């Protein structure tokens, strides 16, 4: 398998047009790098839904349950102090702390799941070696595609990218 090609586009519409065309022609689209979110890419790249929200739900509920158990154990078992005849397991007020820390734990779990899903932190990546790639975070749109077959196909991928309005087509990392 040869090196993937990175095509640079001036705007989102050219990138989306090229991506649709490449897909129709049977080329393999690997990724796109854009300065802002393009929801249209999800369908073209056949993205699978992430499981970030599942992690948040599990993390939040687990922490909330832990906080409630801690309050119950400390007030009803380990340090049972009768304050004005209130029930030792004062559940209505014991819901406040679990709610707060549960929300925090959900957020932290979500962040951890996000990093895991995106494989971040990753301070170095081959894409960064591509010329002009610093503009992917500013004003240019990059498409990463690879040819899976023989050499002639490679030439056709490069041509196709150029014909689709790419400003430049380079091998990744050059």
């Amino acid at each position, binding site marked *: 398998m040869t090196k993937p090609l990175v095509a640079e586009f001036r*705007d*989102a519409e050219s990138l989306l047009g090229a991506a649709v065309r490449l897909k129709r022609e049977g080329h393999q689209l690997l*990724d*796109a*790098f*854009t*300065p*802002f*979110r*393009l*929801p249209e*890419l*999800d369908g073209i*790249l056949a*993205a699978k839904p*992430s499981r*970030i*929200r599942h992690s*948040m739900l599990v993390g939040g509920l687990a922490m909330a349950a832990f906080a409630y158990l*801690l*309050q119950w154990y*400390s*007030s009803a078992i*380990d*340090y049972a*102090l009768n*304050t004005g005849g*209130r029930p030792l397991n*004062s559940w209505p*007020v*014991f819901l*406040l*702390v679990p*709610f*707060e*820390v549960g*929300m*925090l734990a*959900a*957020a*932290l779990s*979500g*962040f951890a*799941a*996000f990093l895991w*899903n*995106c494989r*971040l*932190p*990753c*301070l170095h*990546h081959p*894409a*960064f070696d591509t010329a002009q790639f*610093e*503009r*992917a*975070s*500013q*004003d240019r749109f990059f498409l990463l595609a690879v040819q899976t077959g023989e050499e002639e196909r490679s030439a056709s991928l490069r041509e196709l990218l150029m014909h689709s309005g790419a400003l430049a087509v380079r091998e990744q990392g050059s």
Partner: protein
Amino acid sequence: MSAIASAPAIASAPTNPAHPWIAAEHASYGEVTALVADPILLRTAGRRWWIAFGVSGLFVVVTLVAIYVLFTEGIGVWGVNSTVVWGYAIASYVWWIAIGSGGTLISAMLLITRQRWRASVNRFAETMTVFAVSISGLFPILHLGRPQYFYWLAPYPNTMLLWPQWRSALVWDFWAILSYLLFSILFLYVGLLPDLATMRDRATTAFGQAFYGAFALGWRGSAHHWRCYETLQITLAALAVPLVVSVHSIVGLDFAASLMPGWQETIFPPYFVVGALFSGFASVIILTALVRWGLRLEAIITVHHFDAMAKILLLASIVMTCSYATEWFMAWYAGAPADRSLVTFLFTGSSAPLYRTQLLFNCVLPQMLWFAVVRRNVSFVVLIAIGINIGMWLERILIIWNTLSHGYAVSLWRLFYPTLWDWALLFGPVGLFVFFFLCFVRLIPAVPMNELRKLCREEHVA
């Protein structure tokens, strides 16, 4: 690098009705990026910034001295007494955390409701939250008689074999503020990631590249990154709204869970949440005007932004007024003598002028926002917002003063007279906030550049 637009070519054109949120006929992605990033990366701070920095630095010193005096002398240096046991510290605590809550509500609610104009204001609303909540978290510690033991609020294995009292409002506050502060920092940071990558890629110095590069965590802007980012950001926003409501309800419960007249009201939690939205939006309006002027962002912060925020302010003012009216009505309708006596005291007692000022700033003056002419005049909107912030602080101090100095036992009625150190800890932290905020605008982009670029595409100006 040279090919990238460096000087902002988008002028602050008169507002274009076709693109209400961007005051320019044409604004390329490179230009809007440069508009936000260049003041930080290429330009020096400038004289105005240094003057503000120096003045706010003085306030920081005042704050530190006031805290030092408080810690060495005890809370007797304040005007609190055995009747009015809470004073400026708790009023400021509620005021600051309300401003923080407002910042989160604005950012999160506008994200969930897909308000595109959010792009220009959400970053400093979130930053405001982090600083305001940090400052508010100081006050409950400061107001303790023995602040050195504040960590007893946390459950940890200790040689005394003690546990926190989970039924105490102080313990709720501890967890609410802690969770909320960490949550806000995370929410701000997640939103910042793509912008930190932009800063990394535009930085001209090795230090800048390393600094922003480390915090950008290697963000590449890949389609997969963006998808996960969006999922996380929207879910965090959806969590942020109930979290803020709960945090500020807990602040309301600090009062409502007591037995005092004027405090023991079921309306307190929602009434506090609306107050938070009210003063939070007012603070964002003041900061928006300052950032717009200081960073010359007239092109991306237009009068339409002020118009939209002023409408929310008006709505919050009406709900606030209804809340006050409900309090008066319930005192009369329920017929409890202590409650009726308290409402009479509000209007005729020693703090009546302050109470009338509060009603003027919170209920009457905001009614001017019914008129589009006023909403579209930045100076007017800012003046009303400053009034609201003063009015909301007065509301908090009066909730404390009036109820505590006019409780059930007539023999205990006493007033609160603020001392120098009360004033120092009222105004000092305002300077501390400004100090933090000035550091923020020189370090991180005050406006989310990735959302601006998206806005440019949606508004067809790119």
